[in-house]
């Protein structure tokens, strides 16, 4: 293909991949954390949207991207508390809670955005600008793609290994993995199932919120209603495609973003092929990858179920 030959075009392409994947990676890491603890976090979609709204509001009111980040995290944190209270505390069905929260967040953010941002909604908000890392950024192709990024992208680089380390190398991670699989066993050795689940769910929502923050503060610098546009669902799919393992999930997100970027590219070279067919590419590619490479993938066994102590 013509674009492949040209370095700057290649850099652009991989930058696109990275940009498209970052919010999904954040959300998917959140998904891993919640699902590993046994909670199906369908409300990631709402968390992304809520984070985006919070980021926009914070940046608008305080005038700095850091203010936006703080507000975004707080808003997602609040969503996390609601989800944790309802799905973990009260044990309401996780799917219903998640879907209802999505509806609620969609309504509420739009409502509040109209109230707070109002007429200023179109103007560009303050955001993060890319920070170039000396030396590293001068590596050909990889350098400008990976090391000339905004702070949130660097945060993402950090979070992936951190999540892996947390899950597989710390006692807390062990607790989380045990709870997601067989909560009774964890409970009988004194691990607080609802406590850890709640923490994981809230952290998961905050991660989703970071994805939203990235959208607003690093990518487009405005808030628009329903700007999460299905990314939460894609993150959920990536969690499963990556077998609940942070590193593989990261690869799955990159894979997904890659096919998305590729389909956008391919459109130009083939203007006669209907664009809807290209829109399918990322999904068909994931489907094929799943069928080709996934063996029997076992989700955390206790996912979706409420834990009640006692009973035989």
């Amino acid at each position, binding site marked *: 293909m013509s674009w492949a030959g040209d370095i700057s075009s290649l850099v652009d392409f991989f930058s696109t991949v990275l940009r498209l994947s970052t919010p999904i990676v954040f959300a998917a890491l959140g998904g891993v954390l919640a699902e590993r603890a046994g909670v199906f976090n369908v409300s990631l979609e709402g968390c992304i949207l809520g984070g985006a709204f919070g980021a926009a509001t914070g940046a608008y009111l305080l005038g700095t991207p850091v203010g936006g980040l703080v507000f975004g995290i707080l808003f997602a944190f609040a969503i996390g508390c609601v989800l944790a209270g*309802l799905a973990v505390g*009260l*044990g*309401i*069905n996780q*799917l*219903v*809670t998640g*879907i*209802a*929260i*999505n*509806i*609620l*967040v*969609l*309504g*509420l953010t*739009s*409502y509040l955005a*109209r109230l707070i941002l109002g007429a200023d909604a179109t103007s560009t908000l303050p955001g993060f600008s890319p920070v170039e890392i000396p030396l590293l950024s001068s590596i050909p192709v990889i350098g400008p793609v990976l090391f000339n990024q905004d702070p949130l992208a660097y945060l993402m680089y950090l979070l992936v290994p951190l999540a892996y380390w947390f899950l597989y190398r710390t006692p807390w991670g062990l607790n989380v993995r045990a709870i997601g699989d067989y909560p009774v066993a964890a409970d009988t050795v004194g691990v607080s199932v609802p406590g850890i689940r709640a923490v994981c769910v809230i952290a998961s929502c905050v991660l989703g919120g970071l994805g939203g923050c990235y959208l607003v503060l690093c990518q487009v610098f405005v808030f628009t*209603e329903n700007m999460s546009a*299905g990314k939460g*669902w894609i993150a*959920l*799919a990536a969690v*499963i*495609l990556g077998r609940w393992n942070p590193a593989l999930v990261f690869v799955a997100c990159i894979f997904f973003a890659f096919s998305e970027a590729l389909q956008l590219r391919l459109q130009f070279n083939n203007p006669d092929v*209907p664009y*809807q*067919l290209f*829109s*399918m590419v990322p*999904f*068909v590619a*994931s*489907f094929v990858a*799943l*069928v080709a490479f*996934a*063996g*029997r*993938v076992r*989700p955390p066994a206790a996912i*979706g179920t*409420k834990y009640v102590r006692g009973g035989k």
Partner: protein
Amino acid sequence: MLRAIQGIYMLRPVWAVLLSLLVGAGLIAIAGVNPGEAYAALFGGAFLDYYGLASTLAKMSPILLAGLAVIIPLRVGLLNIGAEGQIYMGGLFSSMAALLLPEMSPFVLVPLCVLAGAVGGGLWGLIPGYLKAYRGINEVIITILLNFIAINLVSYVAGGPMMQEGAPYPYSEEIREGLWLPYIMPQTDAHLGVVVGIALCVVAWFVFRFTTVGFGLGMIGKNPAAATYSGIRVRRNLVAVMFVAGAIGGLAGTFEVLGLKHRLYHLFSPGYGFDGIVVAFLAQLSPLMAPVAAFFLSGLKVGGLIMQRAVGLESTVVEAIQGLVIIFVAASLAFRFDRGNWRRFLERRRLLDTGLAGGITNNSGGKS
């Protein structure tokens, strides 16, 4: 006393709705509208008004069928997030049948179109069913992916090969009137779909409750190892169930096309598949409760739109209230009534009261 508590308990979804509306009233008031008026429009409009009720029933058709498409596999242990995609495939296949098959008597052609829609949805359900049963691939991710694929496929067909010449929007030619589903309320959009949906719910209930097939399926859902042990062919049944569920989802799409829009539109389902998940859990996986839950949810959606029109409320408020209501109702249903606990609680109170009356508190329980 116990009976009174039980009575209050039985009505808990009602209390939940009232409570959520109270919270919602705050939002409405901030938006500068009288909440009483707004709610009167919502409920009066959705359930008491002739046209509003018709709208509710028209909306109930896809929501109920999607709900059933989630309930049936869930009782067999599979989570079908893919009702949305199955709806699209149902719509696609049935409209292709209606537009492409040669002219013949509606008595033959209508069932053929419906069948085509069911098969379309069924095949879309068969894929995750097969992959789950024979390849062990998680059905949740497959159904999510298939949703996106189906939506784009319909967009392509409705905006490409089947698009009406010069149409301002991606939709197909109109299906001729002879193939439309009959209306059940004159002068409205309420069509036969909802009746079929309710009938299928009754059938599903009957099968699960009274037949050996249903018993076997229920066993797979509750303990697949035991089902294998009892000689049930688990894999085959999983595939079959996903086909049936997909077919029911396909019917939802079919009826949207043949009953309501009479064309294949792109993006014709605004997330009915996901409403189906909500219905399934609100109905607590009971096919008989599904119509009630679907009626309620459709009423809430239609009422929300009516509320917008009647008192000029923004859609954002309406959406927020819908989210609240669903959360509250789900919360109330999750709340379990334990007779024993209540009885012991009342008993302890009685002991305490008599103890206090007698001047001594000799609580034999002695819990510190």
